[in-house]
């Protein structure tokens, strides 16, 4: 049975959208993608996905998520669950690429500012950060990104990356310490 469009507004919770999709409402899937696509793209990009692969990886993340939706019982937040899928997808991609970890950041991806000096500083900072992220162990990098870019708490990060909140906190602090050194 299809759920009417009016039943899947932007204010509907993720679990309700998942239930609606399971009941056959395609619009619920659309809303879930709309809600999380940018976050997934942000995470994949900073975690090392190539520019040309980014769209494909975001799509593949959602395809895998919807195919495996029966496995999501709602214990973890949908965002955490989808980040776990994105992380695994990226891991597979790295494995296929035999150790390629990060791609060069393109100038077009760097921040644009009205003030040329500020632009230069920001661009340089972003370049250093990108390089620094590439030098971190995978778990440290992903914990850092989920916290710094997604604002996730340690419990959600632990759910995403199959670790514990305490370990996630330690990884985050190690990552920040290393990145601070590289950017100073």
């Amino acid at each position, binding site marked *: 049975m299809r759920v009417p469009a009016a039943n899947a507004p932007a204010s509907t919770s993720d679990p309700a959208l998942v239930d609606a999709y399971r009941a056959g409402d395609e619009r619920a899937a659309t809303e879930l993608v709309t809600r999380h696509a940018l976050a997934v793209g942000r995470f994949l990009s900073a975690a090392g996905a190539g520019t040309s692969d980014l769209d494909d990886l975001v799509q593949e993340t959602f395809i895998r998520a919807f195919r495996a939706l029966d496995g999501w019982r709602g214990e973890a937040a949908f965002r955490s669950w989808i980040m776990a899928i994105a992380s695994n997808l990226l891991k597979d991609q790295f494995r296929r690429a035999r150790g390629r970890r990060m791609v060069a950041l393109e100038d077009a991806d760097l921040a644009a500012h009205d003030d040329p000096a500020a632009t230069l500083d920001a661009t340089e900072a972003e370049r250093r950060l990108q390089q620094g992220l590439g030098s971190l162990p995978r778990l440290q990098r992903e914990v850092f*990104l989920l916290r710094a870019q997604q*604002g996730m708490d340690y419990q959600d990060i632990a759910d995403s990356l199959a670790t514990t909140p305490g370990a996630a906190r330690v990884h985050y602090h190690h990552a920040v310490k290393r990145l601070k050194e590289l950017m100073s």
Partner: protein
Amino acid sequence: MTDCESVTDRIPVVALGRDAWTAEEAAHLASCPACQAEWKVVETARRLGDSAARRVDPDRVNSIVIARLRADRRWRRAAWIGAVAVAAAMALVVWTGRPTHQAGPIATRGAVGFHLPLAELDRLDSGQLERILEDLEAPLGAQAAPEAPELGDLKDSELERVLRTLEG
């Protein structure tokens, strides 16, 4: 008194614009180089993420994801129909091959097993059957007609006909 840990714990949510510094936290941040360095790292990561997000087109992602999910459903439906068809065919095979009590040419043969297609033998009495068996067991040539003449009994003209026949 605000310490570094309480400030750094909140840096991500403030950098993402989900919350704001309290006056006390802002004062600590302004006077603490370590917290400022961490703020710079997290804020740069946020900017980097925003740049990356600009490369993702949610509408395009949506249309491709939905199209593939529809294709998945079509494939699953086709696979389901195929499985049902195979199951039905197997059920039909099993059903037609089951033992039956109805008399019929195939079923009768299967149930009775081998028998000679010489129904008339059944109607013979034992004496007649014994004679048939004796005939079958007799050596070849033993059944030759008793009135067949020996070569020595033939006349000259008959012998010549036989020889011509043998010579072709």
